[in-house]
């Protein structure tokens, strides 16, 4: 059993694919926000990247505000909609733990902390470590001419 399967009890049954080597250069929040050059986190010690105008607290509201600044709006489902791209935010009892973004296939892509990028289902990452999906957001896809 891999370390990923050890951490996420649903993932083996749900299916997943490892898509990158491990890296500490960026994390799930950066990845969902289309940045693979920095580690994003709203720490109060001002060590990590976080948009200047947003509060530094790991609450769902703060992360929704961050994605809203990138054009996302709150959405009530995780279904694939071809004209939209979606992100999902996970929380557990400690607050926000994870964010993931939807692929055109309908699957989701995540950077697991300093671990690999993987493709997976939303339920695949449910469990003690990340908790459950607390919010889905979506935005219109940019048209490339």
């Amino acid at each position, binding site marked *: 059993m891999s370390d990923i399967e050890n951490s996420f009890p649903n993932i083996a049954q749900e299916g997943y694919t490892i898509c990158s080597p491990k890296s500490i250069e960026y994390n799930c929040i950066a990845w969902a926000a289309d940045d693979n050059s920095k580690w994003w986190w709203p720490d109060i010690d001002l060590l*990590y990247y976080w948009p200047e105008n947003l509060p530094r607290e790991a609450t769902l509201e703060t992360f929704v505000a961050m994605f809203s600044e990138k054009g996302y709006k709150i959405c009530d489902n995780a279904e694939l909609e071809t004209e939209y791209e979606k992100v999902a935010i996970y929380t557990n009892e400690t607050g926000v733990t994870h964010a993931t973004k939807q692929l055109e296939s309908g699957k989701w892509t995540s950077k697991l902390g300093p671990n690999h990028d993987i493709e997976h289902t939303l339920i695949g990452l449910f469990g003690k470590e990340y908790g459950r999906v607390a919010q889905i957001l979506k935005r219109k896809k940019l048209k490339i001419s």
Partner: protein
Amino acid sequence: MDYSQYLPSGATSQLSRTSLGDISTPRGFGDEAKKVDEEFSNAELHYSQPISRTTPIQKFDRLAATWEYNNANMSSISEMALLPSYQEIIGMGKDAIPLILDALKNKPNHWFWALKAITGENPVQPADRGNIKMMTATWLEWGKQNGYIAK
């Protein structure tokens, strides 16, 4: 010579018939020798006990390995930093600084929270926040300027 007087009663005849030769010969293990042997065994055991013989490097390596195992999928820096192994490294105080800088040099990782907690400093420029390569380079330079790393 007849050494049977030194053996427990009834042992003589059995020992003298063994195929291993004459092991009824006394070996010189008096009470004092036994005491020395016990003390030596205890000393060996004590030497091999990690808790009493752990050097700061060994302690750091053990805690760092535990911390890496436990933060394998974490994005939250606060959660990572609050893991007991990380807090214990911070608890090592200034002894941990050269060890952390050495670890950073060999394999960049999220040691910045610990370095700030121990030193009270944060030399990383706001523009470099979250940029792990720049954060690492900045702290290694800080280590040189402050005598923790040879220039």
